């Protein structure tokens, strides 16, 4: 672009316009890079926030007690009949624990700070006495022996060692006093309070508002596993059958078009609407029980079907026409060509799609809220098939119900539950990727 007015241009020195254009180019590039950076940053912040809040849920402080199980107190008749022994309530067992705790403090020479027996017991989980009772009733021969028993510390004491509860916050707290925490500190110094991996978090059922320390994911994991089983058993065959029909056999007509549009739209329907469907159809109309894995499994199946159908169709489409033609050429029927040749070749892709669909179903919570899965469930569901109809929880729903509770110890548990959920998802996705890498064929 030369100028008639004699304006000098040089190849070595960019003119103002070129400079501006180059600057615009650099700005645009920077904007793009920062957008990518923002996305990655969001991921990092999200993951570190979840890990930071939740990792401590896998640690639990506990006090190991040596409890002499006095026959006179637990089984006066001496017959070891569980029905008779059941008359001793948790209060009776609480007293045993209380004495054992006192003895232990005296033995270790830890000053109990003049705390009343009730305050002393406040260091332990309210679940401890019930736990001890369950253990003795399950094995009556323990009576008369001396049992070494690992009692969970109270949620506040647990929080104290994790830094969630401080002496200052305890002053305003009705559930714990600074004196109790100071005693706990002395006990920890004397090695009486230990912190270990919290297996109970993975196996225990949910617990009530006042005992966050014993709340666990057992029922939720079981419930989620039941639902995934139902989803797998129903959605894989139905999804594959539907895809085979639509991809290989369906004539081009209105009915086929209708089905195709339907599947595309179903994939975009908000998940909460599926919850409404489940509530109206499965629970109100068919009378299936609330909060049962069968209802959750059915609604998740309906939600997962479009995903599986789309993946399966893509996978069937990628099998070259030559395979079908060769099969037909040697005299196979259309069905034989599909079931003997095309389907096995498409199987890795189908399985990958199914696992990814299951992973999405596992994280889904909105529809499960509507079918009553938020209910407090303390009993493990029975083994299938009866267990499919028992009330259960699910992992993501358990997270939600823990966030609705007041005690901050439950917020930690909720983040811990998220970590468990993400580990499951990570495993499923890893399996899907390995399957794809190992078996995928490029034509």
């Amino acid at each position, binding site marked *: 672009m030369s100028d008639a007015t004699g304006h000098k241009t040089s190849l070595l020195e960019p003119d103002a316009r070129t400079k501006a254009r180059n600057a*615009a*180019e650099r700005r*645009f*590039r920077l*904007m*793009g*890079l920062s*957008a*990518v950076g*923002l*996305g*990655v940053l969001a*991921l990092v*912040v*999200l993951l570190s*926030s*979840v890990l930071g*809040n939740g990792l401590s849920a896998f640690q639990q402080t506990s006090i190991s007690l040596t409890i002499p199980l006095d026959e006179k107190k637990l089984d006066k008749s001496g017959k070891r009949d569980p029905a008779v022994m059941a008359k001793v309530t948790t209060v009776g067992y609480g007293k045993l624990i209380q004495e054992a705790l006192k003895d232990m403090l005296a033995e270790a020479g830890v000053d109990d700070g003049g705390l009343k027996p009730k305050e002393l017991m406040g260091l332990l989980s309210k679940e401890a006495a019930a736990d001890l009772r369950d253990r003795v009733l399950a094995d009556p021969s323990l009576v008369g022996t001396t049992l070494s028993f690992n009692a969970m510390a109270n949620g506040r004491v647990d929080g104290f060692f994790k830094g969630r509860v401080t002496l200052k916050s305890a002053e305003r707290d009705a559930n714990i006093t600074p004196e109790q925490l100071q005693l706990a500190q002395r006990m920890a110094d004397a090695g009486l309070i230990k912190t270990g991996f919290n297996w109970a978090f993975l196996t225990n059922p949910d617990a009530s508002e006042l005992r966050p320390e014993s709340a666990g994911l057992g029922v939720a994991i079981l419930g989620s596993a039941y639902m995934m089983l139902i989803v797998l058993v129903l959605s894989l065959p139905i999804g594959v*059958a*539907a895809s*085979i*029909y639509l991809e290989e056999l*369906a004539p081009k007509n209105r009915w086929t078009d209708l*089905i195709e549009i*339907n599947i595309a*739209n*179903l994939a975009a*329907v*908000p*998940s*909460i*609407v599926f*919850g*409404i*469907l489940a509530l*109206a*159809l499965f629970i*109100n109309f068919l*009378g299936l029980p609330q909060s049962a894995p069968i209802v959750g499994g059915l609604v998740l199946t*309906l939600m997962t079907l*479009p995903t599986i159908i789309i993946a399966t169709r893509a996978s069937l489409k990628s099998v070259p026409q030559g395979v079908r033609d060769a099969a037909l050429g040697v005299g196979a029927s*259309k*069905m034989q060509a599909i079931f003997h040749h095309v389907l096995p070749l498409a199987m890795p892709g189908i399985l990958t799609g199914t696992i990814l669909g299951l*992973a*999405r179903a596992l*994280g889904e*919570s*909105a529809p499960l*809220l*509507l079918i009553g899965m*938020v209910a407090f469930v303390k009993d493990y569901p029975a083994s299938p098939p009866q267990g499919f109809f028992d009330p259960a929880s699910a992992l*993501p729903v358990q*997270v*939600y119900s823990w*966030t609705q509770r007041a005690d901050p110890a439950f917020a930690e548990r*909720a983040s811990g539950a*998220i970590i468990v*959920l*993400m580990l499951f*998802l990570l495993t499923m996705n890893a399996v899907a990727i390995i399957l794809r890498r190992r078996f995928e064929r490029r034509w």
Partner: protein
Amino acid sequence: MSVGLISLLLLVLAALGFVVGRQRAVASVNGDARRLHSLPNYYGTGVALFTAVPAFLLMIVWLLVQPVVIETRVTEMILPEDIAGGSSRDLVMSDVRRIAEGVDVLAARGMAEGEIARLAVDVAALKTRLADAGVALASDINPHVAEAAAVYRADVATGRAWLAVATLALAVAGFLLAAMQVTPEFRARNVVERFIRILLIGASSVAVLTTIGIILSLVFESWHFFRLYPAKDFFLSLTWAPKFGGGSSLGIWPLLWGTLYVSAIALLVAVPVGLMAAIYLSEYASKRLRGIAKPALEILAGIPSIVYGLFALMTVGPFLRDWFAQPLGLGDSSSSVMTAGVVMGIMLIPYVSSLSDDIINAVPQALRDGSYGLGATQSETVKQVVFPAALPGIVGAILMAASRAIGETMIVVLGAGAAAKLSLNPFEAMTTVTVKIVSQLTGDTEFASPETLVAFALGLTLFVFTLGLNVLALYIVRKYREQYE
């Protein structure tokens, strides 16, 4: 006989059918399989299919219809005077069901049927025995209700018995009929393939049935709602104040406002970031960066929404409150439109970016080369050539993202708050359609009050909105897409 046992028996019969069908076929040609029309296995499969499939279908239909029939029969038995004041027919029916279940528990514990029959007359004894079985009833049992419960229980038992008889009879009939057909000339393969084809068609119509189910349940219950509550108030009123006990105003506008506000913020976050990320990754990024950043964004897409909800509740909400809302004097609530919007925006970034990435990659390289040839810089090419060419697809992607934002539940349940408000302040807690669907339908729900049924009308509105956006997106993409060949 339990359903599980019947299913097991049917499967055993089907397996038997396979063996018998195959053997009859082979025997009919004295072991020379070449003289059969089809391979021997097809004869077996045919018998197995005709044994199991019709019987299973009958069982499913039976299980769907039986409760409905029994309910209507027993409901008719309850006289108007049995319904106490403040109660309703539904509540009495639920008592009937609970009594029947309790009696079942008693029977399972080994109580003799004769004794149960006596209990049905002696209602006081029945109540105490039921309490033992873990079924506590609020009021005394009306003898009429006890009688209805006895009939209900008997009907369920008879229904079960007939179910077993009918399905097994159908299975045996199918077995015999199919087994008789086995002759060397019988075109077993064609029959089996036609049968399988019908099964495949059935599977593919599940999607249509689901849609019909969704529409029917939404429309039916919304119609119930609009009989109890005027549609005019629902669509035009500006207040949302449900009161359990009557006299509530259920206007949808505060909820719609919250929904649209949150979605708008989410799109303001997601669209620029997602779009720029897609442009950078497809036009500029080195292979290495693309190999790291693309999977990272995909991980973001695979994270369940409950995780984002918790992130909003525990991290983003307090952060925005302490660093923006309180210093600026705009409020001190950690759940706010801003919280939910920002987190939802993060959730939508990968959605926008992966959709736009595909669309940008579909723009042919020749267009870019032409632009470079004229001396345009890379960013000028993107802005003036690639972007206009990809615009219809990008608009479609944004509309789909909007539809997802409107239908998203967990983030707003945990991040946006529960107060229905018409306010402009983004740091104030507001609520959305999905939040209210959850809150009206969880907990103890009674399906006769407008406060519960309103959730279905909200659901219908949500369904229409998201469906409309998706259809519009598809329409735009189809109509304005440039065809490159």
